[in-house]
């Protein structure tokens, strides 16, 4: 560490004893980043922004919220009506959850398309899947807090899933509820966990970043960085690009918050929870719909639960299911086609999750579920044996300079 790095004497004094400034300088300023990243690499920082937004708005909301079955619904309405700009804070938090999932899902599909989960980034990927799981638990419990009809019945349906566990299932559900139905104790513990889990997510995000900075970002052509000619310092190149991405993201986000705040919610959640009245269709929030479709596609309760959790579990072992040494789909013609099929399959599952579980929807859910698992468990391991990958460029800087092999140069031009 050179002594002349910082000019400010206070900074210099602190940094000599506690090298936080050197750390930030190294990780956020000089941090070498591949220079060919496309806009899909914006979504990681956007997810981080969304997490911070959720925590800040959530803390303010919690100052005005009452976690009690008799007061929860009205306390949320008090935030909407009487707390200064309470409506803004709540709508940011409410829509923020949806936008957080949009960003994270795009981030995940980017990782799938460009093979970002492959060696040496397996742990980076696994930590990411862990964040997804924690996000789902947090979002589910957060949705219960306003104590509307969907809050209550969603909580009832999802917690009841655990009763499918043989022998001890019923006892586990009673334990989760803290009673014999979803009630005040359930609401209290969900509030407590909804408050604390985001900080657990922050912890895992830090590990995710440590793992990321070990080898640096993957990139659209998926080959390793060969030297400084392939990279640019993170700042200003990617700080400005992230700022631009953030502005675009915020424009969409603000449009939702200010003009369509309830578009992604369900009207029934503006009816106070009533254990005596079941809504006609109990639908989870949109970001759970693909998993909900898988749950309902399996005719057996325990089977449905296992497949639903299995849909996440396969993601944990993904780095070992896909044995192809080539990362990016740009050089894997068959894999690329199946990537889009998988994406469409997930969208179809999401659609089916919102439909009633009857008739053609059930059959389609089964086909879509079967494809999901086929894709990861059978296609991924087998594909490297049949797929002929395209020749890889020699380095990142060559195709950009136009000096790569003719094939890859054409491939790049086609994309433009």
């Amino acid at each position: 560490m050179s002594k002349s790095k910082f000019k400010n004497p206070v900074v210099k004094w602190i940094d000599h004893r506690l090298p936080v400034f050197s750390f930030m300088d190294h990780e956020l300023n000089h941090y070498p980043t591949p220079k060919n990243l496309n806009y899909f690499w914006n979504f990681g920082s956007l997810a981080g922004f969304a997490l911070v937004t959720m925590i800040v708005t959530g803390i303010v909301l919690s100052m005005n919220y009452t976690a009690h079955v008799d007061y929860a619904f009205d306390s949320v309405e008090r935030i909407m009506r009487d707390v200064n700009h309470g409506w803004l804070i709540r709508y940011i938090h409410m829509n923020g959850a949806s936008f957080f999932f949009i960003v994270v899902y795009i981030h995940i599909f980017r990782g799938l398309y460009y093979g970002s989960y492959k060696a040496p980034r397996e742990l980076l990927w696994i930590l990411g899947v862990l964040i997804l799981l924690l996000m789902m638990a947090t979002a589910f419990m957060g949705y219960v807090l306003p104590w509307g009809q969907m809050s209550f019945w969603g909580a009832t349906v999802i917690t009841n899933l655990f009763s499918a566990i043989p022998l001890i299932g019923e006892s586990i559900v009673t334990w989760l509820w803290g009673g014999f139905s979803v009630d005040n104790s359930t609401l209290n513990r969900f509030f407590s966990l909804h408050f604390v889990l985001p900080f657990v997510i922050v912890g895992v995000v830090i590990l995710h970043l440590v793992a990321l900075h070990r080898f640096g970002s993957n990139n659209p052509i998926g080959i390793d960085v060969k030297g400084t000619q392939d990279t640019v310092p993170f700042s200003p190149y990617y700080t400005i690009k992230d700022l631009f991405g953030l502005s675009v993201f915020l424009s969409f986000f603000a449009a939702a918050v200010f003009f369509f705040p309830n578009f992604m919610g369900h009207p029934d959640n503006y009816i106070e929870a009533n254990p005596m009245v079941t809504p006609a269709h109990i639908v989870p929030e949109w970001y759970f719909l693909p998993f909900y479709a898988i749950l309902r596609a399996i005719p057996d309760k325990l089977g449905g639960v296992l497949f639903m959790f299995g849909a996440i579990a396969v993601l944990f072992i993904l780095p070992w299911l896909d044995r192809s040494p080539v990362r990016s789909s740009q050089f894997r013609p068959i894999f690329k086609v199946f990537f889009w099929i998988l994406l469409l399959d997930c969208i179809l599952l999401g659609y089916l999750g919102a439909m009633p579980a009857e008739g053609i929807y059930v059959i389609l859910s089964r086909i879509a579920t079967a494809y999901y698992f086929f894709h990861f468990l059978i296609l991924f391991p087998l594909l490297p044996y049949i797929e002929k990958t395209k020749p890889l460029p020699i380095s990142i800087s060559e195709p950009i300079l136009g000096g790569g092999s003719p094939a890859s140069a054409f491939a790049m031009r086609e994309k433009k």
Partner: protein
Amino acid sequence: MIKSSSCFFPNNILKLFLSLIIVCSSNFSFAAGEKISYPQLKWSFSGILGTFDRASQQRGLQVYKEVCSGCHGMRLLAYRNLKSIGYNDDEIKAFAAENSVNTINDDGEVVERPARPSDKFVSPYPNDKAARAANGGAYPPDLSLIVKARPDGANYLHALLTGYVDAPAEKKVPDGMYYNKYYSGNLIGMPQPLYDDGVEYADGTKATPDQMAKDVTAFLAWASEPEMEDRKQLGISVMLFLLLLTALSYFAMKQIWAPIKNQ
């Protein structure tokens, strides 16, 4: 966004991702599985720039007071909130004082006092059971959030209030139930509330059922989202700021990246 991405990434992939977002999020409108379609009216408060029509809201308050409030409460609304639909302090005070609320006096006895602007709208029944008992077992829902709590709430409400027609011959309507062509299942516990000249409007507007339904819907839409006008107004400023920020950061990015791109 799509255009500027072309230098980095194929357009079609970005478009597909965008359509993923749109498809995912548009599931909900038809998630409830409602099969009855309502007339789609043009409301002054719909759209990005929509605002409430004060005159219509005030007429709607009158309809609520004279027709609906006999059975339906508005427990989340306070009398003081009426200021934002154009009433002054004295009018609100007088309006509130027409109702009475229970309070405990210094001797510990429950006594009645006139309601104040700071009080919430007084509900017609002391509790849910009393409400049910007085209405043949059917619970008249609280209307504070009714427009937000129904899919396509404003159109639904207007349709429901004007949807009382003679039942088809084959449909049996049991005692205490009424036929409504827009209600799910067509049998509703609420008798037809709006008739010609059911209220007498001070501004001379003719009180047809359709007009009254529109007015009370405008009033209830505001009660559901009292922040709507502030929200949209702030939204316009925020969007303008963000568009500027997006443009500035875009050109700053282009300038910073120019040496790398031109290598």
